[in-house]
């Protein structure tokens, strides 16, 4: 469903991605791990061109993701950020309905109903008319996920979704992500939550030095470690 070929990206002469090839199938839950600065977030952001790759192609259902028509492509790829990036001047409900209504995917009434249904599902229906600064971090992130879901995306990209959360709120966000994975959502997740990778992912990918070093199902990934760098990385995070 997503095919990445020869993806390269440099910042000020420093090459962060040195040619990444990856195929993500429908229903995959792919977790990207690696030491900080290894390029995993950059890779994720290249998928929907929040970062512009220097070289290489990204195909979504066979269609190349380019600058032209990027907005339509992004509408099909939801993204969840480390710092939530909810719109602070809009209510929770408006946060969720703004894009689908503006892009004419739904009328306001349908979008409102959909937003309420999604909020109901995560138990935050009572916050529909609240503003983001009245919510806890965990609530904000779950609403950010719902905002992405409201677009009916084909794939969801998660950029360290729990890294900015207080420890007691990590669980509620991971729980929602697990639920989505079980529901068959295609997900690409950059995270340090090894428990999540082990339990939910069907592929765990280790990126180091700008390339994919290991790409295995979690059982193998965590038990049968051949790569030296991965061994030292896991010894630090586990």
């Amino acid at each position, binding site marked *: 469903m997503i095919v990445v070929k020869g993806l390269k990206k440099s910042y000020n002469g420093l090459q962060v991605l040195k040619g990444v090839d990856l195929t993500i199938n429908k229903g995959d839950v792919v977790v990207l791990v690696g030491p900080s600065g290894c390029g995993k977030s950059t890779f994720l952001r290249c998928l929907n061109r929040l970062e512009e790759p220097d070289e290489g192609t990204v195909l979504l259902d066979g269609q190349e993701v380019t600058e032209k028509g990027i907005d339509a492509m992004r509408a099909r790829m939801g*993204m969840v*950020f480390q710092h939530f990036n909810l719109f602070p*001047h809009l209510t929770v409900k408006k946060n969720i309905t*703004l*894009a689908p209504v*503006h892009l004419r995917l739904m009328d306001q009434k349908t979008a409102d109903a959909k937003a309420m249904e999604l909020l109901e599902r995560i138990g935050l229906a009572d916050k529909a008319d609240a503003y983001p600064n009245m919510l806890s971090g965990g609530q904000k992130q779950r609403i950010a996920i719902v905002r992405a879901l409201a677009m009916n995306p084909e794939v969801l990209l998660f950029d360290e979704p729990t890294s900015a959360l207080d420890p007691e709120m990590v669980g509620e966000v991971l729980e929602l992500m697990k639920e989505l994975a079980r529901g068959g959502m295609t997900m690409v997740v950059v995270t340090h939550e090894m428990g999540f990778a082990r339990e939910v992912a069907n592929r765990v990918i280790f990126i180091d030095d700008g390339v994919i070093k290991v790409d295995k199902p979690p059982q193998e990934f965590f038990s049968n470690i051949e790569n030296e760098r991965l061994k030292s990385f896991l010894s630090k995070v586990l």
Partner: protein
Amino acid sequence: MASLAQQYEVWSALMKSGGDVSLWQQTFVKFYQAFLEKNRWLQYIEGVGTTLLVTAIALALGVVLGALVAMVRVAHDQQSPRHRNPLLGFVNFLFKIYVTVIRGTPMMVQLLIMGMVIFASSRNFTMVGALTLGINSGAYVSEIIRGGLMAVDPGQMEAGRSLGLNYLTTMVKIVIPQAIRSVLPALGNEFIILLKDTSLITVIGGKELLYAAQGVMNRTYESMFPLLGTAAIYLCLVLIFTWLQGKLERRMAQSDRR
């Protein structure tokens, strides 16, 4: 009033004849000449009206111009380095020159150039003054607005774009509403500066408050009361607008806490 007028007649006749007048009597006569004789206070009122009108026109022009310049400059700076729009680059270049020239030359010189060179044949000095002030203010306002737009968390733009909204929509629906909040106090200050700077259009013959005061000075050969009166009126106007600005800011702060 009638008795004031009579008193004035008596004492001014006494002054003219070289008689012995007290300091109080002199002050009274000058004050009466500056504000009351021949209903001169009406000229000041008229001047204040023009001052406010010029301020309003200049502010409106400045905000429109400033917003346009700021939008173009931010859009130019935010485009990706490999997909530069040449038209945007050109307009950005022109706007940069505009801001540099306006901020780098004295307002008085700009007024004289506009009044005596560019619009030398125009007789509507007040409007030429308002136009000049607006163009001047636009350069400063553009920097204020640009700062406000750049102070919005870049994650907001990314979030909007990642949902499939285009650049302009994200700007209008998400970034600008948040920038306005942070920009309003600085715009209020700009408004107050502009209000006082309208006094400069006197040099090209704009008929605002100071012009009225100078008219009275020429008629009466007395400068103290017309000038002090003008200063007092400006101070009152500024105090009123500062108070209104504070009120607006408190209202904004309240809605921030919602």
